[in-house]
């Protein structure tokens, strides 16, 4: 199978990745080769086999809801590209 450039652009859009034209062409070829290789899984009979999303025994981890120490606002905002008034600053989401 071969991924088209349009498909590569669609996936890149879903992943919020800006790609150069060169990257799009390269990934179309490389991802096609990897997906071709992965298609050998279709040959495995998995009728009645449950999926494994985790190797851990199925369990729900609960704890008491007790307030504890947490990071300071200064620590939390310390790595922010832009912060203002104790908040992360981002470009406008809604046009005013």
């Amino acid at each position, binding site marked *: 199978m071969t*991924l088209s450039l349009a498909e*590569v652009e669609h*996936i*890149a859009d*879903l*992943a*919020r*990745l*800006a*790609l*150069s034209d060169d*990257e799009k062409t390269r*990934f179309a070829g*490389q*991802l096609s*080769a*990897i*997906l071709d*290789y*992965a298609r*050998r*899984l*279709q040959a*495995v009979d*998995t009728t009645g*086999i*449950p*999926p*494994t*999303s*985790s*190797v*851990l025994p199925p369990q729900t*981890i609960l*704890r008491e809801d007790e307030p504890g120490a947490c*990071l300071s606002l200064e*620590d*939390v905002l*310390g*790595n*922010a*590209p*832009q912060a203002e008034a104790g908040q*992360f600053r*981002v*470009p*406008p*989401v809604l046009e005013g």
Partner: protein
Amino acid sequence: MPSPADLSLRETVEALRSGQISSRELVAACLERIDRLEPHLHAFITLTPERALAQADEADRRLSAWRREPSAPLPELLGVPIAVKDVLTLEGVRCTCGSRILENFVPPYSATTVERLLAAGVIVVGKTNMDEFAMGSSTENSAYGATHNPWDLERVPGGSSGGSAAAVAARLVPAALGSDTGGSIRQPASFCGVTGLKVTYGRNSRYGLVAYGSSLDSVGVFTRSAADAAVLFVLMAGYDPRDATSLDVPVPEVHLEREEYLHGLRVGVPREYFIPGMQAEVEAAVRGAIETLGSLGAVVREVSLPHTEYALPVYYLIAPAEASANLARYDGVRFGLRVPADDPVEMFRLTRGAGFGPEVKRRIMLGTYALSAGYYEAYYGQAQKVRTLIKRDFDEAFQQVDVIAAPVAPTTAFRLGEHSDDPLAMYLEDVFTLPANLAGVPGLAFPVGFDGQGLPIGMQLMGAPFAEATLLRMAHVYQQVTDWHRREPTLVKL
């Protein structure tokens, strides 16, 4: 004063306690060796000399007080220098994960595994180089340049924890931390001739480990011997309420000193791990080591892990799928790189396009595709079902044997640039290490020979969940009668 290059982790502890060497002398000597060898190796991304020396002085004060009052408790590894893969956070020291997107990220907390070792007295001298976000098998995918193999500077150290493996192999530090999602501890340990432990999934906390494939990621160690790995294992392992996937399973004490014989331990040799096309010297060395285990009292028999050939496609769908979700957090909002734009979505796209390297983009794309509408069931869903079959293979094998012995990789260290243009060829290097991550079982890699070019060959022992002590004990007994793990690259003498 002994040279730190000549001291194992346990000998370092002894030398510090007896006062043969002070922690400051030790740390200064390590930093001096790093200065001298780093131009050849590039094992580190960030060094922390001032912090390390200040901690060494503090350790020396406590050591002198302890010598006056030896009944007072002393942390097990007080004053011992180690290195930490740049995928684990250390409070106040930048954590790049080998990526430009985290070039200036300074974490406000330490990983639990790091914190536990700090509490035991270790001193971190630096953060080691790695494939970006732990995605790779050669450390060539680091945004900060490749690490070179101490045994042959034209070759890769393996990956993704190549910096940690090279640092221990070149005797820059007695131990280093790494992470293993698909072989990222065991394969570089094999390529660099050191001992590398990947623990059972859930054994070590992942808190503070930058996430790649969350159902596969584990934290482990590189050392010069199994005995040294056991020391760190016991200190790091155990339940952490901050990681919901860490398990509340008792951590055994591991006493190896009196172990000399493998009384009837059953070793399985999986026929699927000896494949056409693998380097003949690797097969010969691993089969030779298995014979040695037999002569030491182990009972060797063939076993089968019939779904082994599917581990590679399963892993390269599941890990990228998990990565595509985990790496969604790098959006330029809360931390890391931001490429400014007029609207948020454009900011996300440009930030991620500029901040991630080619392999990370490739895996995000692959994972996004495998999870996307119309392809989910055929790719991700089917991979999860075949993962169940791979796990069952191990469950069944461990009904028959205690340990599985196999090669770590089909070849010894390959040349820098050898697989640069062919991602699939690079993925094939992981064929023997991926199954343990998919099944969640522990693995221990250690050297069992050298090829004709003087490159180390590794073997891995895999065990049932939580059987790390059995693997460590078996490797320790092997290392009592062999000296592959004591060999040093000639670079050490530079």
